């Protein structure tokens, strides 16, 4: 190809690189599609925002009846009696908060300890393998945890765990009263088991992200391994670990199936953990399809709105914490 010859041809304005008509057309078509593709991706991204806004909107709009009829008393009302038209959310708020917090009180130490072992003690390959297995725990569907809860955990607690507990600590109000398998206590345990893998997974990553030279500095100062972990590594990983706990809390609050299968589904505020209870998610799951009348449905949706707000706040806090610790690097899940 003689460059001189092609230089003689007309200036390139639209002829640059166009060796033949077909490539010219193809090129022009391709360039036309550019803004279209951009708009397509933009539209998809925008639709996510739209869906989220619509979600909030729907929750708000469809709870208007009960909000107007009951006002703020909804949140502090202790009676849930749909037949009588009495809708008080407090038993569910109580159940949700109590089960989640106790579940976390169990799961957090367990999870963090496991994460410490996996990050500090276990050889890397073993650590990765174990972390993978624990991630599998996180993948188990909620309804299966519920199944195990009903048929395994509840009988186990009834026969093996609760009697000694009642004997030893039965004088405490929280361990008073009879135990029939389904109860707040059972729900707490199930939730704890469900939530541990999240704490382990995130905490382990956070611990691993603490720079090696910090540990080395501590060892060089003749600290034992545990002292290094306790005084140097954990403090630096503190915020990320808190974040993982918050995230786990958010999950526990919204957990539906496993809870509704083991909690006893009784809208009451009991002082004993052995008594049955109810959570927001559980009552919505159970009574939604049987809600007669608009006020009933509206009350359930308002419960959903409450749960939504609480979850968002806690998730938001945890994201802030994660961002502050690991330099904005987000984790999976």
């Amino acid at each position, binding site marked *: 190809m003689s460059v001189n010859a092609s230089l003689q041809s007309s200036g390139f304005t639209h002829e640059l690189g166009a060796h033949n008509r077909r490539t010219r057309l193809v090129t022009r078509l391709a360039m036309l599609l550019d803004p279209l593709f951009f708009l397509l991706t933009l539209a998809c*991204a925008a639709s996510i925002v739209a869906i989220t806004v619509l979600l909030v909107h*729907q929750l708000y709009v469809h709870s208007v009846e009960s909000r107007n009829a009951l006002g703020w008393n909804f949140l502090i009302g202790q009676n849930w009696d749909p037949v009588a038209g009495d809708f008080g959310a407090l038993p569910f708020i109580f159940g949700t908060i109590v089960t989640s917090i106790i579940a976390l009180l169990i799961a957090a130490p*367990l999870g963090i300890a496991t994460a410490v072992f996996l990050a500090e003690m276990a050889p890397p390959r073993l650590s990765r393998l174990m972390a993978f297995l624990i991630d599998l725990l996180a*993948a188990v569907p*909620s309804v*299966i945890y519920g*199944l195990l809860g009903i048929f395994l955990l509840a009988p186990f607690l009834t026969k093996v765990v609760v009697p000694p507990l009642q004997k030893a600590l039965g004088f405490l109000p929280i361990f008073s009263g009879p135990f029939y398998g389904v109860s707040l206590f059972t729900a707490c345990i199930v939730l704890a088991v469900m939530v541990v893998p999240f704490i382990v997974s995130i905490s382990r990553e956070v611990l691993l992200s603490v720079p090696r030279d910090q540990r080395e500095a501590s060892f060089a100062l003749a600290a034992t391994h545990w002292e290094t972990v306790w005084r140097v590594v954990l403090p630096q990983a503190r915020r990320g670990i808190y974040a993982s706990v918050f995230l786990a809390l958010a999950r526990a609050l919204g957990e539906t199936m496993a809870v509704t299968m083991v909690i006893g589904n009784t809208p009451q505020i009991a002082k004993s953990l052995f008594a049955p209870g109810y959570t927001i998610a559980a009552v919505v799951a159970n009574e939604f399809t049987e809600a007669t009348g608009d006020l009933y449905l509206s009350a359930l949706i308002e419960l*959903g709105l409450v749960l*939504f707000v609480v979850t968002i706040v806690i*998730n938001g806090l945890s994201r802030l914490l994660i961002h502050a610790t690991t330099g904005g690097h987000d984790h999976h899940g």
Partner: protein
Amino acid sequence: MARLALRKSVNAVMFSLTFLCTVACLGVLFFILGYLFWNGGRDLNWNFFTKLPAPVGESGGGMANAIVGSGKLLLIASAIGLPIGILGGIYLAEYRGKTFPFIVRYATDLLNGVPSIIIGIFAYTLIVLKVKHFSAWAGGFALGIMMIPIALRSTEEFLRQVPSSLREASLALGATQWQMILTAVVPAALRGIVAGIMLDLARVAGETAPLLFTSFGNRFWSEGFDKPTASLPVMIFTYAIGPYEDWHRQAWAAAFVLLAMVFFFNLAARGVMSWRRAQT
């Protein structure tokens, strides 16, 4: 000297404790798996996969309609969730911007954190209330919304990992931006995106709560997508809380199948990630 001995023993004790905790966690996993596979596997038979549920109170029957129903729901969910999530991920990774991408990411994180039952309420108010009946569309829609955040985040993450030298090479060869994205960047990130899709499916396949009042359930076949549709997770729930021994056995069998499916997707996702790494 005594102090050192004390510190050393504290070291040993604390790490033993952490080891015990780890064993406990893993023990739970193995126990769950073992019990499930033993208990569920016992009652798995051909009937389970081919027969409809028997009339209430009678034994026998299977969950063929639930398996197919779950398949339908996942199909609709994928058709809604994957395109929006993946294309949204492409937008965030490949195009510049400050406020709007921030809003998109925030909305995605928000959506990801919403309890699934509330997504169910959303689908209910949008679809079931309007058409006055339960349907696979409504259930699939709810699951689809749950699929969006995961698909978007994993797509964006893997696209960002593609080195900019690849983009430069593509542009320097005369590719337009969309050509660069679709012919050079996405293929390079494909493994991760596919793994993300599988994890997405695994997560959503086991969801029960949003289906309770959207696709609801069905003891028979549901023709098309516009009728109440049975699904594995909902069947497990219904049978587990039911009074019949036979139902309980079937619930275990269904749990086995469901868990096997979820684990399969999970393991396949990891397999996709590490496969063929030796070649490149």
